[in-house]
């Protein structure tokens, strides 16, 4: 019987969170992952200038940018086969 493999492009895992700093995550393949930032909690804390980046397999880096403030950012990371 042939081994069944997931079709490329199907979802392998989803992680999510809300952060005000760089985040530790379970290991993913960055080349097959998509990070979505869903927005900030506060409009008074320069949320438009804050951002998140998947910097390596286990880290989402938080950057509050040059305007200061530390808004809460919601994010979701989906990894694909």
């Amino acid at each position, binding site marked *: 019987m042939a081994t069944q493999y997931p079709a490329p492009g199907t979802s392998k*895992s*989803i*992680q999510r969170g*809300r*952060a*005000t*700093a760089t985040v*530790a995550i379970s290991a*993913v393949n960055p080349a097959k992952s998509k990070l979505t930032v869903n927005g900030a909690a506060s409009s008074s804390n320069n949320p438009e200038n804050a951002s998140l980046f998947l910097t390596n397999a286990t880290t989402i880096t938080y950057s509050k940018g040059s305007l200061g403030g530390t808004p809460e950012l919601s994010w979701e990371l989906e*990894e694909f086969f």
Partner: protein
Amino acid sequence: MPNYAQLDAGRVVSVTQTSGVIDAPHMILLDAYDETLLGKAYVDGEFVDAESALPRWITQYAFRTRVTSELIATMELAAMHNPADAAPVQLAKAVQRAEMARCFAAQYIDLDLAELRAGFAAVDPADFARIFDAPVLDSERP
């Protein structure tokens, strides 16, 4: 899926639902995903409001702002040396001046310090509450 509160310097900086286990001392495993923990302090295994977990210290500038220049002037006038006073009164005023000098020379003020609070016991109760019991703002902290 496991849920974690991620700590930095004792505060929750991230609430995260991961796809696998993360074994690290700064990752506190949660029973459920709870975003309300963000910003709280983690003390003795409990999540508490960060405000209540921090010492109530404020800068000298913030303390003088709370006390107000008018009240400081009133206290200084009340403590001025008067050679006509009886010796015990002169001594009490001298102690009061010394205490004020010590207080206003400090780099920061501990609002919960009993002897400091006692030194301000004679001020109006509303002023006392405004000076010592109002929540400490981040901008007032050293």
